[in-house]
Every structure is written in C-alpha cells, then in structure tokens.
C-alpha cells in the first residue's frame, strides 16, 4: 500500500470530525480507515465528504458486519457490495473481526466471542476462503477483545493461529485488544503476542480503553491510548516487518491536535523499530 509521505500511522475516518479534519491539516495521517458498512449506498453530503477524503488519503476498510464466525451462511449480496466499494476507492486492505455479529438471521451490530473450538476453526477457515475467493484479495482478521470465553476447548492464541495458518488469510493485530484481554483474562501480553502468527500480520490497530472495575477493561475506543499499550506496541513492532498502523478513536473525540500527538508518538516508535531500509508491505 502506498502510504502518504512515507509514514505509517493512519486514523479512523469518523463523520464526527470529518469536516474539521478535511478543512485543516492538523491531523497528518498516512492513510484513513473506514467501515464500508457506514458508507456503502450513502449519497449526498456524506458521499461528498468521503470523496474529498479519498482524494487526499489512501483508504483501508475495516468491516463490521461480515460476521466471519457466524453459524449463518455468508451474506454474498453484501459481500459483493463490499467488493464494489473496495474497487471504487482502490482499497488495498480489507480487515474484519474474528468474532460474530449476526446469528440466526439477526444482526446484533457488536462483536460476540466465538467458541474457541476445533469445529469453529474449520467452519471459519472455509468461510474465509469463500470471502477471499469473492473479493479476490486477502482478508485480514483482527483479534478482538472479549469479556468472557464461551465453551472454549483451546486457548485464544491457538484458535487465532489455527485459523490464520489454515486459511491463508492475514492478521490484523490489535495491540490494545491484546492488552485488554491480557488484563481481563490474566495472561502475559508479550508472551501472547509471540504465540501469534506474526509473519501473517499485515496491519496493526492501536486504541484506548476504559477500566471499569478492578477486574474488567472495556474496549471503548473512547479514550487516549495508555502508556502500557504504547510499550506493548513498541515491543510488538520490534517483532514485525513494517505494516500500516491505525489509531482507532470512535467516541469522545478530543481536539485533533491531541490525536495527532498520539499519531506522532507512534510514528516516533516505528521510526526506531522499523529502520528506513524496510519498504512497507
């Protein structure tokens, strides 16, 4: 993917700040990410904003409703709409969540945890292949934050690795989600990361979260990224080849210069861990 100004860090493109973002250059992302579900089939004012953004920045897509882990059949009609959108905006990365958001023909619009089981692994691998065949491009799947396992028969890292390796898809490594899960499920985040299929990581997410009790962190995307997540990011990027990195901020949007501060901090980290001779994947 050709990133703007040879930088690495992108920002989630939100309607909440699109006007200010496009009218100024306070935020200097290398690319923008958006959920295709929020834009497909939308015209008028928002389509104009999207087209303006697309003229200035490369776009990555991060889907919400594919529901790769659903027991239901894939929605092929929807998938073809995604494909059309991806072509229209020359999108090089399409990522989704390793979770399910639709079950028994009802969309829930949130990310539910899939049972970490062998049959679910097989089921999902076959669906990923189907998606990649339709889209004619690789899918990058994200490790999601979860607040409880359900009917698990293996650990999370094994579940993710078996799916990624078995399907040939890429991985979107969400560093904040690893942190959140390591806190909620009491494991070592760095150790967890080393167990992932790191050679398949094609994209990274960074975000803020909210600790709501002594034992639970909720992945809100509504706060600044905390120092411990920056540290984990530095550790993680040291294990990886250079890939695009996205700052997710969906709620409680601060001044754009604050977001730029987070982008700059990440850019500084990767300029150390990813030496300049690396070309971006």
């Amino acid at each position, binding site marked *: 993917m050709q990133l703007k100004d040879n930088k690495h860090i992108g920002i989630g493109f939100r309607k909440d700040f699109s006007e200010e973002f496009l009218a100024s250059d306070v935020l200097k992302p290398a690319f923008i990410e958006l959920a295709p*579900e*929020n834009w*497909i*089939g*939308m*015209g*008028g*004012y*928002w*389509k*104009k904003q999207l087209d303006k953004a697309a003229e200035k920045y490369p776009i990555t897509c991060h889907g*919400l*409703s594919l529901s790769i*882990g*659903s*027991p239901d059949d894939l*929605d092929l009609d*929807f998938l073809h709409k995604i494909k059309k959108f991806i072509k229209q905006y020359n999108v090089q990365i399409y990522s989704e969540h390793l979770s*399910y958001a*639709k*079950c*028994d*023909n*009802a*969309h*829930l*619009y*949130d990310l*539910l*945890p*899939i*049972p970490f*089981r062998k*049959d*679910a692994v*097989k*089921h999902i691998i*076959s669906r990923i292949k189907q998606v990649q065949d339709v889209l004619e491009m690789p899918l990058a799947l994200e490790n999601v934050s979860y*607040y*409880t*396992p*359900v*009917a*698990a028969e293996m650990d999370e890292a094994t579940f993710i690795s078996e799916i990624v390796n078995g399907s040939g898809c890429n991985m979107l490594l969400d560093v904040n989600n690893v942190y959140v899960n390591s806190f*909620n499920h009491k494991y070592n985040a760095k150790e967890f990361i080393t167990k992932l299929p790191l050679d398949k990581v094609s994209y990274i997410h960074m975000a803020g979260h909210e600790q709501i009790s002594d034992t*639970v962190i*909720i992945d809100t995307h509504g706060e600044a990224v905390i120092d411990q997540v920056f540290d984990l990011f530095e550790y993680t990027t040291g294990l990886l080849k250079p890939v695009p990195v996205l700052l997710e901020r969906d709620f409680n949007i601060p001044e754009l210069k604050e977001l730029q501060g987070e982008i700059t901090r990440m850019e500084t980290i990767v300029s150390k861990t990813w030496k300049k001779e690396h070309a971006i994947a």
Partner: protein
Amino acid sequence: MPLLKEDTHAQQSKLAHYCKTGIKPDLIGVIEENLHHYRRLVFNIGIDTIETAYPITYRFLPDEIWDKLVYDYYAEHKCKTPQVWRMPLEFYEYCVEKDIQSKLNMPFLNDLLHFEWLELEVHTMDDMTYPSFTTKGDWLNSPLALNPEHRLVKFTYPVHILAATELEGKAGDYFLLMYREKESGKVQCMDISILYAYILEQLQNGITLQAILTEADTLFQINDFEMLKEHALNFINDLKQREFIPGLLNT
C-alpha cells in the same frame, strides 16, 4: 455435513439470544459476572441508533412506553440489514406491522415515524442522476426536469407541521415534498396542497403543465383555468428558485 457442530452453534445462538432479550442463558465455561457487558453493549448500540433516528418520537413517548417498545423490538425482531444506520427503517416497519399505534392509542405514530425516517432517508440516500435539462423553452408545453432526490408523501396527520403534542384530532389529508439540495446536501421540506401534490406527481410522469392543468381544472372542479394557471406558475417558480425544478427536460 456442516463443519460447525450443533452444540457449538447452540452456544453461539444462546449468547446472541441473550444479547437480544437479556434473558440469562446457560452457557458453558463463561465468566458469569462479565456476561452482562454483551447484553449492555449490544442493546445500547440498538437503542442509540433508534433514538438518534427518531428524536421526536423518543421525546414524545413516555419513558416506560418507549423503553418497552424498544425492548420488545430488540427481543422480537431480527435485524436484517448489515448496515446499522439503515436499521431504524426496520423499527418503523416493525411498529407498523405490530400496529403499535392502535395499541398505544396514538393514531399518528406511524406518520410520525415515517416522517422522521424520511428525513434520514432523503439525507443519506444514494446519489441519483439528474435528468439532462435546458433553461430555455416553453414551460407550459414541455416536460419539466425535477430534482430526482426527493420523496412526495401523503400523511393522515400533519407530523411535518405540528409538534407531536398537537397532533391529536388533526386527521386529514396532508402532503409533504421532501428533497435534498444538490450542492449542500441539506434536506428541505415543503407542505403542499393536494392540488400541488397532484401537479408534482403528474410532472414526475413527464406530463406537461398545460395538460396537467387542463385535467386538474375539471378534476378539482376549479373551472377557472387562468386563475389555476397563475397559481400553478407561482408554485413552479418557487420550485425553480429552490432549484427543485432546474429546467425543462432535454428531449
């Protein structure tokens, strides 16, 4: 043979059902005290989306009625669209199908929800191709070009004019033209009479103003063509100024 075992499917279904209804499931190997976060997160997304789409209805209905309506909708209805911003249409359709307005004895509820949905729909609907037009020619005897990004609807209650608290007892025939301005993308509303609604509908069908007015003169028992023409031309001029009618269709 399906790759996913029935038992795994059942676990997934139970969690999803719990998120829709809030009724505690029996799931294997879960952290019981964390389960409610899923119900809360899913339900909040649903509620927020509906309340943002229907702010007037939301403010008008008493809290306990609104809460029950939204609860029932989420528990009973299976949301079909993968695009959450389109989901409020399903809420409106659900209310019509379940005849909620009769149950609540609020005969204007369907119109109110319809009106609020239209605002969202017209604002966001896919861009449409404008017809090719010219500004010079015979306005009476040529088909006119209309802004295609519009909806012309009939209401039984004047939900587009009056506050929700004033609607009771106001049943009648009301017509609304709602359209999206091409440049700004802003949604505009015009309350119009049945006569003008008729004219617009016929213009949409490509009929010339002269022919429409000749017909309307007898249909509406006006029997004064010149006066009708004058009024109609004023109406058309207003729509021209609003750029709703940009010109005459190029044929």
